[in-house]
C-alpha cells in the first residue's frame, strides 16, 4: 500500500484535521478506491472478496452460536440440540455456520487452483502466496476444532484420530498427545481448549488476511495473461470496477450457499454426528469432512504410521516451495501448452484422492491412493521443475490492453516487447 502514494485529498476541515493524525481514509482510498486493477480480470479473481465475506460470515454466526453453546463434555451435545430446537432461528445460525465452513473451503480451493493455473505464486508474489498457505493451514485447524464442538460420534472420533497423528512423533509423541488432550484420552479438557482455540483462530486468520492483502497491494494483482500492468490503459480503478464485480460475485455465491443451507443442510455432514460421543464405540466408517479427504487419502496411502503423517503434512508444506520448484518464467498456464495438460491431470488426481479418501481403506482403493499420492508429489517435484526447461511457451501479448483489445494498429504507444517488469503501475 505504501507503494501507491495516495491521491486522496480530504475535502472537509474535519477530514483534513483527522487525516493528518490518522491517515486511514487515504489508506482506504489508495487500497480500495484508486488502486489499479488489471482490466482483464475474470470472475476467478472475485474469490478473494468471497473469502473475505465468508470469514466475516463465519465469525458473526460463530459469535452468536457461542452465546448458546456449552463447551462441556456432558452438555455440549444437548446444547447444540437446544440451539437447533429452542433458540430463535438457532437452526438457521447453526446451519449457516456449519455449511459456511464448507463454502469457505469451496471458495478457498477455487482461489488456490486459480493461483496454480495463472502462476500467481511466482515472483514477485511469493510472500503473498506463502501467507495464503498459512491462512489455509489455520483454516484447516479451525474447521477441525469446530467440528469437534458438537461432541457427536464423528466429533469425538475425528478428534481422537487427528490428535493421535501426533503420537507418531518418535519419543515425545505420547507426551505431546496427552498435552493436547489434557488427559489420557479425548475428554472434557480437550473440548474446552478446542472451544477456546476455535474462537481464537479466526481472528488470527483475520490478522494474516490483512498481511495477505497488504502483500497483494505491493505488486498488485496477477491477471489471466500473467504479464504485469505496464501503462494506465492496462488497468481500471478498484472502485467501481472491482468493488461492484466482487459484490455481484458474493451475491451469486450466497445463492449457492443458501441452496445448501435451506435445501440440504446436512448433506455435507455425517449422520453419525447426531449420535452423542461414545468413547467405547467407534463409528463403523470414519471419514473426515469432504475438504480434508484428499489429505486423508494421502495419510492412509502410506502403510506406516509415521510415514503417513509425514506424507500428509508434506502434501501441504510442499506448496510453500512452489515458487522455486516451478522453473518456468511464464506465469499464466494459458501460454504454457504442455503445463496446461499437466495442470488438469493434477486437478483430476486431487479429485481422485478426495474420492479415495471417502472410500474404506481396503483392496484396490489402497493401490489407487498410493498411485495418486505418488503422482501428487511428482507434480511438484518432477513436473514443475522439468517443464520450465523443456516447454516452449506460446508468445505472450505485449500488454494486457493488447490481449483484450487485439493488437492496436499503428502508434498505440505501447512499445512492443517491453518485457521489463516495472514494480509500480499507473
Amino acid at each position, binding site marked *: 500500500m505504501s507503494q501507491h502514494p495516495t491521491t486522496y485529498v480530504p475535502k472537509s476541515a474535519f477530514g483534513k484535521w483527522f487525516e493528518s493524525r490518522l491517515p486511514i481514509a487515504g489508506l482506504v482510498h489508495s487500497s480500495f478506491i484508486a488502486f489499479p486493477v488489471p482490466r482483464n480480470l475474470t470472475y476467478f479473481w472475485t474469490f478473494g472478496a468471497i473469502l473475505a465475506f465468508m470469514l466475516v460470515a463465519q465469525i458473526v454466526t460463530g459469535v452468536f452460536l457461542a452465546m448458546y453453546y456449552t463447551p462441556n463434555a456432558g452438555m455440549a451435545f444437548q446444547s447444540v440440540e437446544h440451539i437447533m430446537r429452542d433458540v430463535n432461528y438457532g437452526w438457521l445460525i447453526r446451519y449457516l455456520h456449519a455449511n459456511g465452513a464448507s463454502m469457505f473451503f469451496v471458495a478457498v480451493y477455487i482461489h488456490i487452483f486459480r493461483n496454480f493455473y495463472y502462476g500467481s505464486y511466482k515472483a514477485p508474489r511469493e510472500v503473498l502466496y506463502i501467507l495464503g498457505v498459512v491462512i489455509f493451514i489455520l483454516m484447516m485447524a479451525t474447521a477441525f476444532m469446530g467440528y469437534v464442538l458438537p461432541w457427536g460420534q464423528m466429533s469425538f472420533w475425528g478428534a481422537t*484420530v487427528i490428535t493421535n497423528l501426533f503420537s507418531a512423533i518418535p519419543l515425545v509423541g505420547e507426551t505431546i498427545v496427552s*498435552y493436547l488432550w*489434557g488427559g*489420557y484420552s479425548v*475428554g472434557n*479438557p480437550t473440548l474446552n481448549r478446542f472451544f477456546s482455540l476455535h474462537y481464537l483462530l479466526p481472528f488470527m486468520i483475520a490478522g494474516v488476511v490483512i498481511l495477505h492483502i497488504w502483500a497483494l497491494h505491493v505488486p498488485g494483482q496477477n491477471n489471466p495473461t500473467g504479464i504485469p500492468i505496464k501503462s494506465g490503459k492496462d488497468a481500471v480503478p478498484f472502485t467501481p470496477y472491482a468493488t461492484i464485480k466482487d459484490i455481484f460475485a458474493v451475491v451469486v455465491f450466497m445463492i449457492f450457499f443458501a441452496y445448501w443451507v435451506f435445501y440440504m443442510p446436512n448433506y455435507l455432514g455425517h449422520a453419525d454426528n447426531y449420535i452423542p460421543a461414545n468413547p*467405547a464405540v*467407534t463409528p463403523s466408517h470414519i471419514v473426515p469432512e469432504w475438504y480434508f479427504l484428499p489429505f486423508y487419502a494421502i495419510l492412509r496411502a502410506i502403510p506406516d*504410521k509415521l510415514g503417513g503423517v509425514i506424507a500428509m503434512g508434506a502434501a501441504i508444506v510442499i506448496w510453500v516451495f512452489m515458487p522455486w520448484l516451478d522453473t518456468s518464467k511464464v506465469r499464466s498456464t494459458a501460454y504454457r501448452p504442455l503445463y496446461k495438460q499437466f495442470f488438469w491431470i493434477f486437478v483430476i488426481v486431487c479429485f481422485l484422492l478426495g474420492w479415495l479418501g471417502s472410500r474404506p481403506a481396503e483392496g484396490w482403493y489402497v493401490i489407487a491412493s498410493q498411485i495418486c499420492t505418488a503422482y501428487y508429489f511428482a507434480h511438484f517435484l518432477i513436473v514443475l521443475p522439468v517443464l520450465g526447461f523443456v516447454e516452449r511457451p506460446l508468445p505472450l501479448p505485449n500488454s494486457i490492453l493488447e490481449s483484450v483489445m487485439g493488437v492496436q494498429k499503428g502508434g498505440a504507444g505501447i512499445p512492443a516487447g517491453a518485457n521489463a517488469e516495472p514494480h509500480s503501475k499507473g
Partner: protein
Amino acid sequence: MAETTTHVAEPTRRDFLYIATGAAAVVGGATLVWPFVQSLAPDAATVAAGAPVEVDLTPIAEGQIVKVFWRGKLIFIRHRTAEEIKAAEDVNVASLRDPQADSARVKEGKAQWLIVYGNCTHLGCVPLGQQGEYHGWFCPCHGSVFDTSGRVRGGPAPINLPIPPYTFASDTKIVIGQEVTA
C-alpha cells in the same frame, strides 16, 4: 541518543548492560511460557481420577470381551477360550511386527484373561472384537488386524495393543492401575 553515543572498539559497561538486559528479557519471557504449557498437561483431578479400579471377573463368560474405563481410557477384558489361547501361543514370535510371546502378555497361570488397552495403536479407534483374519480384533478405521493376544498382525498399527498395569487381587478380581504383586 545516537549522536551522543560514540563508537568504540572496546566493549563498554553500556554494551554489557544492553546484553544483560536483553538476556534477562529473553530468559524471563521463556520462563513465563512454562506455566502456560504445563497447564495443558493432564490436571490434578484427571490424575487423581486415575486411581486403581477393581473389576470383578465372575460375570465375564468365556469368549466374552468386556469394556471398562481407567483414566478415561478404554480397556478390553477378554475371557479367552482354549482355542483362542492356543491360536495366540502357536505363533512364530519372530514373524511378528512387534514380537512378543503370548505368555508375556498375560499373568502366569491366568492365560484365559487378556487385559489390553482398547484403542488401536494406529490412530486410536476402537477395534471390533472377534473379527478380522485372526478373530482377535479388527479396526474399522484403517484396517489394522490384531490376534487373540492383541498383537498387531496387519494394517497400519505400529505396535501391539499395550497391556495396562494390573494385578490379580484374587482369582476372580483384578485391580487395574496397580502393578505391584503382594
